[in-house]
C-alpha cells in the first residue's frame, strides 16, 4: 500500500500552478497517470523517487515513511526502493547489457536475478553487446530490466515507450506486463497512449492542472457511458466516409483500423481526430484461430 500526498508550486509556461494531489495505491496495482502536458505527472513520479522536493508531503510505502514534511523526514533517494524508466534509456554506454544490469545490483541482492531478467526480457543473445549496437526497443528492454534488478517496491515509468514505433511499443508493453506480474511490482506509469493505458493499467488517475479530476478503472475514467457491452475498444477517428444513407467511420485502435457504421445524427458529434469508444456485444464477434 502506497499513500501519497504532495503539495508543490510548479513553475509552468502559464505561471505558477499549485500541484496538490492525494491518492493511494494497493500493492500489485498498475496505475497510469494521464493528463495534459504540464499537469504535474512527471513531478509526481519525481517526488515519489525523492528527486524533487515539495512544500508539503506525506508519503508512506508499505508502512515505511518516505516523506513527512511536518516531521522533516525525507528519505534519501538511494534508500527508496524504486525503479525508474524514462523515455531516454540512460544506459551506461561503456558497459555491456549484462554489466548494465549488474551495475544496478546492490549489496545483498541475489545475483541470479540478472540471469532471470535477461531471460524474461529475452536479452540473453544481446547480453555482451554495448548499448550503441542495440535498437531503441532493445535499449528500453535493458532499461526496464535494470530498473527491476533490485526488485523495487515501486516501478516508475515516465512515458517509456513514446519514442518507439507502434509495433515495438506493443512488444514492450508485453514485457512491462510480464515483469509487473512476475515480480509482483506496484507500477506507476505516465502515458498519453489510450490503447496502452487500457492494456496495462488497473487504475487510472486523470490529472489536470495539478489536481486529480477523476480516478478509477480505465473504462470508468475514459468512457462517458458505462455500457454493459463486453467487446469494447477505444481509438481515434481517422476517416469518415458517407455511403448511401449512412457513414463509415474508420477508427484507429492500437495498430488496427476498424470500421463502424454510423447514422447521420451520430455523425454530428463525430469528426476526424475525436477519441471514441466502440462497443459491441460479446455475442456478435466471430472468433477464429489464426495460424
Amino acid at each position, binding site marked *: 500500500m502506497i499513500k501519497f500526498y504532495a503539495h508543490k508550486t510548479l513553475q509552468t509556461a502559464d505561471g505558477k500552478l499549485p500541484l496538490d494531489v492525494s491518492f493511494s495505491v494497493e500493492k500489485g496495482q498498475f496505475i497510469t497517470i494521464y493528463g495534459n502536458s504540464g499537469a504535474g505527472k512527471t513531478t509526481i513520479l519525481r517526488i515519489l523517487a525523492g528527486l524533487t522536493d515539495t512544500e508539503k508531503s506525506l508519503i508512506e510505502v508499505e508502512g515505511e515513511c518516505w516523506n513527512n514534511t511536518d516531521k522533516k523526514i525525507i528519505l534519501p533517494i538511494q534508500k527508496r526502493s524504486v525503479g525508474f524508466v524514462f523515455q531516454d534509456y540512460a544506459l551506461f554506454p561503456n558497459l555491456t547489457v549484462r554489466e548494465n544490469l549488474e551495475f544496478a545490483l546492490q549489496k545483498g541482492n541475489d545475483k541470479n536475478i540478472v540471469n532471470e531478467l535477461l531471460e524474461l526480457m529475452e536479452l540473453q543473445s544481446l547480453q555482451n553487446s554495448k548499448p550503441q549496437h542495440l535498437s531503441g526497443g532493445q535499449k528500453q528492454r535493458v532499461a526496464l530490466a535494470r530498473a527491476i534488478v533490485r526488485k523495487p517496491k515501486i516501478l516508475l515509468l515516465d512515458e517509456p515507450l513514446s519514442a518507439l514505433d507502434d509495433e515495438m511499443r506493443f512488444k514492450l508493453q508485453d514485457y512491462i506486463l510480464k515483469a509487473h506480474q512476475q515480480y509482483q511490482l506496484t507500477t506507476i506509469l505516465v502515458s498519453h497512449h489510450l490503447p496502452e493505458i487500457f492494456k496495462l493499467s488497473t487504475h487510472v488517475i486523470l490529472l489536470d492542472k495539478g489536481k486529480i479530476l477523476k480516478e478509477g478503472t480505465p473504462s470508468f475514467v475514459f468512457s462517458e457511458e458505462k*455500457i454493459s457491452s463486453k467487446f469494447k475498444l477505444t481509438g481515434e477517428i481517422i476517416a469518415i466516409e458517407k455511403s*448511401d444513407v449512412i457513414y463509415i467511420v474508420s477508427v484507429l485502435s492500437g495498430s488496427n483500423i476498424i470500421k463502424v457504421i454510423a447514422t447521420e445524427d451520430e455523425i454530428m458529434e463525430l469528426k476526424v481526430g475525436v477519441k471514441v469508444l466502440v462497443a459491441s456485444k460479446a455475442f456478435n464477434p466471430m472468433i477464429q484461430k489464426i495460424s
Partner: protein
Amino acid sequence: MNILSGNITSIQGSESLSLVKIAVESNTFTAIIIDTPESEAYFKIGNTVKVYFKETEVIIAKNEPLNISIQNKILCKIDSMKQGEILSELHLSFGEFNIKSLITTNACKTLNLKNGDAVLALIKTNEVSLSPND
C-alpha cells in the same frame, strides 16, 4: 444508436449470464448480458437503466409474425423514411420514444412500407446493451 430508458423488472441469472427484462412504457424489452447483480451495482430490479441497440439490428415486420424466436417485438408507427440506393433509414415511434431502423431499400420496397404504417420492430435479445441511467 437507439437509446431508450426503462426499469428493470426481472433478472434471471445463470452463472455469469443474466436475462433481464426492462419495462419501457408498456413494452417489455429482454436483454441478455454478461453481468450479474453482484458484478454491477446498478444492475438491480427496480433500477432505471438505458437500453441500447444499433439501428442495423432492428428488423421490421408488417404483420405479427408467429413462432419467431425474437423476444423484443415493439409495435411502432413509421414517422418518416430516408431511402438510399441500398439502405433506408426508418424513423419509428412508440409512445414517447423514437427509434430508427436501417434496412435495405429492397426490403423497404418488398414490404411496401409507407409513412404512417404500423410495423413491428424486432430486436434480438443478444443485441440489447444496458447502462446505468445517470
